């Protein structure tokens, strides 16, 4: 539930902003590359909340939680090592809250995510252009926050590594992008030294199931703006269901399918500056909250090589 939220964050952050809600322009999961020596950086804010959640596969609410919300304030950046190889990072501060019941929310710095994004191939096919990407990422906690306090913990405190294949096809101003990601999640340590999942464990270590993410996005894209719809699925490869009226646990089988939109606009008078906004909602899930989120951010492009030509315009993928 909250966990979900948090999980979303994590996944996002850690993995790569897989969630539609976090699909900012120039992220690890879109087909946009920065030019060589261009550094795009900016703050982001997101608000996500849910009232209903899936307890296993059973959808329910919880009057002792009310609406569970997660706010994130983060810094994201993307640097063009070459026009075909970009490095990306993000780091968020997370605040959780439950609107009902007695449980205290938590806040803190969550995880640092780093990605390398390689455009391996560009090829003209018919009237359009096909691009193939490989993306690798890692993430790790930036603070010793509590993971075992779901749904109000700010993250799952797992180190992750991810590998993604992404294909993009653009024809004129229209594009489609699809990607598949495998996310390895390291075991975590919790503050208690015994816990029950589907059996008793006498250890403070929790085996974290890996995850897979599938992302499909399509829409309008040119140098000035992007408008896209996003379908995203996160599937935990393993894990267990929350039992009836139980609390969530970090190694639950958390799945979510979200649909969302993402918009980016480059300001005509100041082409180094772009505005990004979007939102998503959860259409199916398991052991997660049915979250809806909105986000917004500004990005500014610096040219670290000293040239004046760089702008926030995205490099065309075709």
């Amino acid at each position, binding site marked *: 539930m909250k966990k979900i939220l948090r999980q979303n964050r994590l996944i996002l952050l850690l993995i790569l902003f897989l969630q539609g809600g976090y699909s900012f322009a120039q992220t690890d999961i879109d087909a946009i590359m920065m030019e060589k020596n261009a550094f795009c950086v900016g703050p982001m804010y997101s608000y996500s909340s849910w009232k209903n959640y899936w307890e296993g596969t059973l959808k329910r609410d919880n009057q002792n939680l009310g609406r569970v919300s997660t706010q994130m304030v983060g810094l994201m950046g993307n640097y063009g090592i070459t026009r075909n190889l970009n490095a990306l990072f993000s780091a968020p501060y997370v605040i959780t809250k439950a609107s009902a019941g007695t*449980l205290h929310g938590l806040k803190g710095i969550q995880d640092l995510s780093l990605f390398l994004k*390689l455009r391996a191939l560009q090829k003209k096919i018919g009237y359009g252009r096909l691009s193939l990407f490989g993306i690798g990422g890692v993430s790790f906690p930036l603070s010793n926050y509590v993971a075992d306090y779901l749904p109000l913990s700010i993250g799952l405190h797992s180190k992750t590594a991810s590998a993604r294949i992404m294909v993009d096809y653009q024809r004129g101003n229209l594009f489609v992008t699809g990607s598949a990601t495998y996310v390895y999640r390291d075991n975590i340590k919790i*503050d208690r030294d*015994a816990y*029950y999942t589907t059996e*008793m*464990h*006498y250890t403070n270590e929790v085996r974290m199931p890996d995850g897979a993410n599938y992302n499909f996005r399509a829409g309008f894209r040119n140098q000035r703006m992007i408008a896209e719809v996003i379908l995203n699925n996160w599937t935990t490869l393993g894990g267990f269901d929350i039992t*009836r009226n*139980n609390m969530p646990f970090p190694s639950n089988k958390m799945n979510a399918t979200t649909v969302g939109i993402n918009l980016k606009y480059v300001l005509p008078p100041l082409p180094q500056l772009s505005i990004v906004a979007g939102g998503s909602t959860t259409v199916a899930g398991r052991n997660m909250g049915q979250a809806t989120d909105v986000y917004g951010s500004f990005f500014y492009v610096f040219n670290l090589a000293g040239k004046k030509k760089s702008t926030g315009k995205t490099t065309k993928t075709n």
Partner: protein
Amino acid sequence: MKKIIFFLVILIAATSLLFVACNKNIENRTDNTAALNPANIDLNAGTWKPVLLIGPTEFPVAAPIATNSPDYIAQINEIKTWQADLTGAEQASVKYWSAGAVFRWNEILRELVAKHNLPPYQNPDGTYPAPNANNPLAYPQFPFANPPYAARAYAYFSAAQYDALVAAWYYKMLYNRPAPYTVDATVNVLIPKSTLPSYPSEDAVVEGAAVEMLKLLFPGDQDFIQQKAEEHKRARIIAGANVRSDIEAGELLGKQVAQKFVTRARGDRAGTAGGNQTVWTQLETDCIARGEVPWISQETPKRPPMLPLFGKVKTFLFDSLTMVTQIRPAAPPSTSSQQFKDETNEVLYYSQNPTRERMRIIQFWADGVATFTPPGHWNAIAAEDFLKQNFSEVRWARNMALLNMAEMDAAVVCWDAKFTYFNPRPSQVDPRIKTLTGLPNFPSYISGHSIFSAAAATILGHIIPARATDYTNMATEAEMSRLYGAIHYRSDIEKGFTAGVKVGNYAIQRAVTDGAE
């Protein structure tokens, strides 16, 4: 083309790194426990004082067949047949059970408690269903193994095993049947050898008593329990530790002794401890009549208090008059007093200023929903320490019984105080107080964690004096975790601790007079 190759190389390297670099398997602390090899086999334990039995011969054990009889030789051959073709799973089973019968069954009970420690979900009309022992698999499953239920379960379970083992030791001495490997030197023995007579099997006594108690306590988990029982008995035969007749006699004795405990449990008033609407209303009315603010459930919809009549349950270590006159704490600070306001403000401070270290303490000791509860936590602490002491099975059982009778009686004392005073939780009187752990659904005064922990630390400090200071420090941390978590006032934990020490001292009183020291 070069680019494609580069890309593929990176992808393959990254992916293989993911799969190769990481072995995520986790070991439990007790997975590789060494086989029990008692420093002292406690040959005189047949003379120790039982809890419920009138004496060790209350349930007679028939004389065993002679070790030169054809039947016995057939039983020896059963061992040899198993040993001729051992699978890895069978060897693992022998190793698992060799850690100790009382220890492993204690772990199994903790697991059952954790599985069943889940509050029922409400009905559509906002009332709450109660688990039904006669229909344990229907939702809400029976039992809801909350702390009082669990404390009582651990106590009966442990005390029944202890009494059954006292009787077993009596008959071991009486019949003096040697172990199979002593009778027949060609029998392999897969566990440490012992000079303890093997009839009746102490392992089967523990298993029989456990299974019989668990029919009452966890009636919906019989498949799991019976599977463990069969595995346990087979492991003893495979190990060469017992012949079948040792096992059968032990199991029967364990079941018979446990039935006496089942009879006591059926009449100990726990079955009616849930109360009813009349009882719940009366508690509130009485509290208001005393001029105090009554406890109100902070759950939505409002949940009836947990087992409000558990304070009436029959205790093991003292009688109810002693409890009321010697142990029950004086009334908490009046809800209209300055002290109450000051203590509430202290809770507010901890609510608003959580530190990471305090969060660790809160989490470590929370023992809330889906855990083995605070008494279970102290069972785990005790068990892992007992493993290092090389106790005999009968001493293991005796020490677990002392611990768990103290924990159950602590639960009774605690619930008596909670429902005598019906004191509100901090977050009820000051809604600014948000809790850093789940808020239990029963009155505040006195703190269950404090009395459970102090009682456990007191008796464990007597059993292992070298650890006494550690136990006290752990208990102090456990009680403070409830103030840090913003669910208890300082008075709750201080008076809870004091009451816990008193309960623990009654357990010590029994310990010094039961013949085992």
